[in-house]
């Protein structure tokens, strides 16, 4: 009954394909508008679209809620997601790892860059008191952590990184409206490369709309999304540093 190579949405009957959609169309409300919504959903390849709700938004705009059945199938068995493979250690293990395998303090500089002023995310990773019961990097005896706060320019971040000889940069980006984070993240890597120092440090980004895959695409070593905790990041940094030393 279950065929993971041909997966389709499920409502209450195998392969019924049931999906819920909602959207506005810039057309005046009425029977024609509802019919337009119905046909529009059909254009997406969904069958039996039912417009269960429609409302006049004013300004010749209309909103619809539609249920319909998708017919496409997807092969779940062929989906792969790039993931951070290094194991996550805890506070004690990380500090021990640093002592034993790196032999000096690890220097980390973090910031929320560009015009972005959302500090809660980077603070969650870095601040003493931490987040969700996990201490932040500032609390790690073997880590020297510098949290530059928010609205930090890429220049300032790099300057600081050079000053303190950072092993890792942590960049937070929370505002993603109109993809404003992409040029900002790209710029940092470009600047590091232009200055020939990209390889000197591990460069990591994070934020609620970021993930490892996107981070790799943008030229970062790793990316972390919603719900990240300090040990996730620290574990990656120290393993990666260790690996790079081995490789040399």
């Amino acid at each position: 009954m279950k065929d993971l190579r041909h997966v389709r949405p499920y409502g209450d009957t195998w392969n019924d394909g049931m999906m819920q959609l909602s959207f506005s169309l810039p057309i005046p409300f009425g029977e024609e508008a509802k019919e337009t919504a119905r046909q529009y959903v059909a254009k997406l390849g969904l069958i039996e679209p039912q417009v269960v709700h429609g409302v006049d938004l004013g300004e010749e705009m209309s909103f619809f809620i539609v249920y319909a059945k998708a017919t496409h199938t997807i092969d779940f068995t062929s989906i792969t997601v790039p993931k951070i493979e290094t194991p996550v250690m805890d506070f004690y293990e990380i500090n021990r790892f640093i002592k034993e395998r790196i032999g000096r303090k690890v220097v980390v500089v973090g910031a929320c860059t560009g015009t972005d002023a959302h500090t809660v995310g980077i603070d969650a990773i870095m601040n003493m008191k931490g987040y969700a019961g996990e201490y932040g990097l500032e609390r790690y005896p073997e880590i020297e952590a510098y949290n530059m706060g928010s609205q930090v320019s890429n220049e300032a971040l790099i300057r600081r990184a050079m000053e303190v000889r950072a092993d890792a940069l942590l960049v937070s980006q929370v505002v993603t409206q109109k993809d404003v984070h992409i040029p900002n993240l790209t710029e940092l890597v470009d600047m590091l490369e232009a200055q020939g120092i990209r390889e000197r440090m591990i460069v990591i980004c994070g934020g609620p709309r970021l993930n490892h895959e996107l981070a790799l695409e943008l030229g970062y070593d790793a990316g972390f999304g919603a719900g990240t905790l300090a040990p996730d990041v620290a574990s990656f940094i120290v393993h990666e540093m260790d690996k790079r030393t081995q490789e040399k």
Partner: protein
Amino acid sequence: MANKLGLDQAKIDRARKLAGQIADDVMGSIADKTTVAMERTVLRLFGLDGVNEEGIPLPNVLVDAVVKKGKLERGISAWVLNAMLQTGMGIQEIGELVAAGELELTQLPLASDKEIRDRGAKEAQRALDRVRQSREARNERLLSLGEGSKPYVYVIVATGNIYEDVIQAKAAARQGADIIAVIRTTGQSLLDYVPYGATTEGFGGTYATQANFRIMRAALDEVGEEVGRYIRLCNYASGLCMPEMAAMGAMERLDVMLNDALYGILFRDINMQRTLIDQHFSRMINAYAGIIINTGEDNYLTTADAVAAAHTVLASQLINEQLAKHSGLPDEQMGLGHAFEMNPAIEDGFLWEWAQAEMAREIFPNAPLKYMPPTKHMTGDIFLGHVQDALFNLIGVATGQGIQLLGMMTEAIHTPLLHDRQLAIESARYIFNNARHLQDEVQFKQDGRMVKRARQVLDEATETMAGIVQKGLFHALSEGVFADVKRTWEGGKGRHGVVQRAPEYYNPIEEELVRRLSLGTAKEAVVE
């Protein structure tokens, strides 16, 4: 239980007394009758199961055979017990022979009354011992696994296919449901037999069959172990097979059953006499099986207005309560129904609803009230609907309801999809937890709008019942006192299945239930 509404206990007592009179009156007019469903129930409890070649259940085959001979007024028991005595065979063998046309129950030589009654008593013991075991098994599981906190989260599954239902039910249990109700396919309540076997084709619900009960029970036991919480199973007794359903539920360890004294009359146009006889017997079974019954007052508000008809809900709850007491149901098993069906467009509807829900809580302090969600005023706007359900959940926890039948944002569209339930449960859990002790903290202004509203509903319900006492319930029903629906004594479906009991009528199950429920001695019977 606090008295936040300042309801006058003397008034509540008076209302309850009126309801008691109405119930007594009903009991008087049904005591001398039985029904085909009641007799089939006896056969099922004796152990008869299966269908004939045409798919007709054997209990129907046997009862119909005796009806055809015009001999059901003695009850089916004497005939089959006699056959067992005469042939030395078990009930199932006898049933199969009758079905095959190889045995005529009424043609056999008759054993002595004493022999029949002795055998009858033995069969009834065995039957009810099985029910008791099932009850004990529930209690053991409840003890070892524990259960969710109140209000219990009650959700429905209704795919039409018992195997899909199982997936949906197990997922719901994992998501946090405490009670799973398998909704019945449209029209089943009007079938004068119980369909047989595992089924996969229903509309708007799944056939209620003993096999389906068993499949779902096993699935919920399994998932209950995994989630570490006993998951209750609910199905419907209501309909032309009310006591049979109750018996099946008792045997398969259902925990909750829809079982209203008036629902069938009002909403399925089932004959009054038939329903009232069937409900009494079915409720004795439920009482003994430790099954919580759910009444259907919520349905009144799907046809009538929640403000205008609020008092009919209360009146019906009181009558249901008094009738249930006649069947030996303790308060703790009385899931009296009411519903959040306020028109969302009215000013202060939330206040009226809160007052009414609190009123129900205070008048029935020990009953696990079943609180039903908005349905009538739900629309295709699933987002607003989710909010209507949220307010319902808030009142549920704020008034200490026992069973919260979760509303689904897609109420106006389809029976619940897998994730509709998940979204409903997460919202209910959020609200229950976030407002856990609200009930302890909130009080109402004396002589304010809410307090007045509750008092008014109680007064109106009392008045309505005073009227019913005068006319009798049957006459009142013919005038449309509930849900704007009018029904007559002789009208409705299933009338032909009502049979006058002969003086020598014999029903060992009934007798044993009366004994075990101590119904003979005290009216306010308590389960042993």
